[in-house]
């Protein structure tokens, strides 16, 4: 079995969470990872000051897509301020894979955090 492409990762990759667009988004942004051709577009809708719904579309490697799935799920219920304060470590904890030997893949994992920071300025 692969160190990175574990069952958990492959399962999320094949059954993505929150994939799609939101018509009425309060925040929206797109980020590209030109190195890989990864692309993530993020849509956020608020209700009573908290993130009610999050969706993303895009394409790319399994790591970027899985990270987007798990991260969007994690954002629900947070205030934009809380979301903005999230760090690299938070997203790496979510995907549960050790990328320390693959620093070049780190950018893939962090793409959804980058697009969030762009969306919530």
């Amino acid at each position, binding site marked *: 079995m692969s*160190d990175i492409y574990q069952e958990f990762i*492959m399962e999320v990759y094949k059954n993505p969470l929150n994939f799609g667009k939101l018509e009425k988004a309060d925040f929206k942004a797109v980020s590209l990872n*030109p190195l890989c051709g990864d692309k993530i577009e993020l849509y956020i809708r608020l209700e009573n000051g908290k993130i009610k719904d999050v969706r993303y579309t895009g394409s790319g490697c399994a790591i970027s897509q899985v990270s987007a799935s798990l991260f969007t799920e994690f954002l629900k219920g947070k205030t934009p301020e809380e979301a903005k304060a999230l760090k690299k470590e938070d997203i790496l904890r979510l995907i549960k894979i050790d990328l320390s030997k693959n620093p070049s893949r780190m950018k893939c994992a962090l793409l959804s955090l980058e697009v969030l920071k762009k969306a919530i300025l």
Partner: protein
Amino acid sequence: MDVNRIKKDFPILEKEVNGKKIVYLDNAATSQKPRQVIEAMDELYYEYNANVHRGIYRFSEQATEKYENAREKLKRFINSKEEVIFTKNASEALNLIAYSWGEENVRKGDRIVLTVMEHHSNLVPWQQLAKRKKAKLEFMDIGDDYEIKESELDKIRGAKIVAVCHVSNVLGTINPVKEICELANETGAISVVDGAQSTPHMKVDVSRMKCDFFALTGHKMLGPTGIGALHGNRELLEKMPPFMAGGDMVVEVYQDRSVWNGLPHKFEAGTPNIAGTIGLGAAVDYLSKIGMDEIRKHEIEITKYAIQRLEGLSGVSLYGTKRMERRAGIIPFNVKGVHPHDVATLLDEEGIAIRSGHHCAMPLHTRLGLDATNRASFYIYNDRKDVDKLAEAIENAKKIFSEPPATQR
């Protein structure tokens, strides 16, 4: 050509990655270095290190001799009867032309013609020159066979500069550079050939090619990083202003003016990469000893085998021409349903090094309608076993990505 004997000259190929012996298939990015090259550079630092073209003492004379010897070796290697200038890589060689010749000669409305398969290093310098001068940048397109369309060569007529890669770093297409340079010469354009991907793998004859400029880099041809070269037409180089100013490129300096040194030194400002140049000289010796025609034969054989082997895998798309006389040892491919970066990471787990992404050729990927590709590229130390391991690892990657997730089993 005895691949097993050659392998022994490359200590790094004994290394293991993830518990498996390295299978190095990223030669289009950089090659590995034989002991002979590493030792030639060590020898300088251990035995006779000094600056070149300066000291009137034994070590400096020795270092200068070795440095200039490397130039002569390289000139013979590519059959240059004009000048060879050392640069840090092919990019610097190409920038030298774009800045020095381009700034003086390109005017508003002039056309600069490239191919759609250029590496960024033979594209961005011309794009920026065109912007500064309000010149036009045009691209010769490829056909379904991944070769430049014959009809596209018409774009050369009336152009100011024609700059093309000898071999595409993504497709492995060998371009008809002799024909292109001849057409450029006939119609008054200067011809620039980016030889970064050809010089390491086939016999290059710049005199026969009749190019005005030819850029190459050492690290892809068994030499160290940080050393490249520019072959250039002497008459053009004489008229060109220096690219960089500083020590060694001047013969007289006054407070208000300087007199430039002669060729090639006019274009080699500052202390050069002495060890790198000597290393490149050793690399040229190593390649010459095997013989470039032998190397080319070996690469055609392994490329043919790889195409046949990978074509047999379902869901694997290959790109590039199948005319072997027009094809270098580079195989771009995609695996259906698996992003190239995932393929590369899974192959790395098997100790196989390939490249994935756009390989510094974004416009080509846009032209092909692809976000990214995988690329396997071969050299003298690769054999059929490496191709077999590659094919097996691709099958394994396909399996990991095709198995239904646990919840659906």
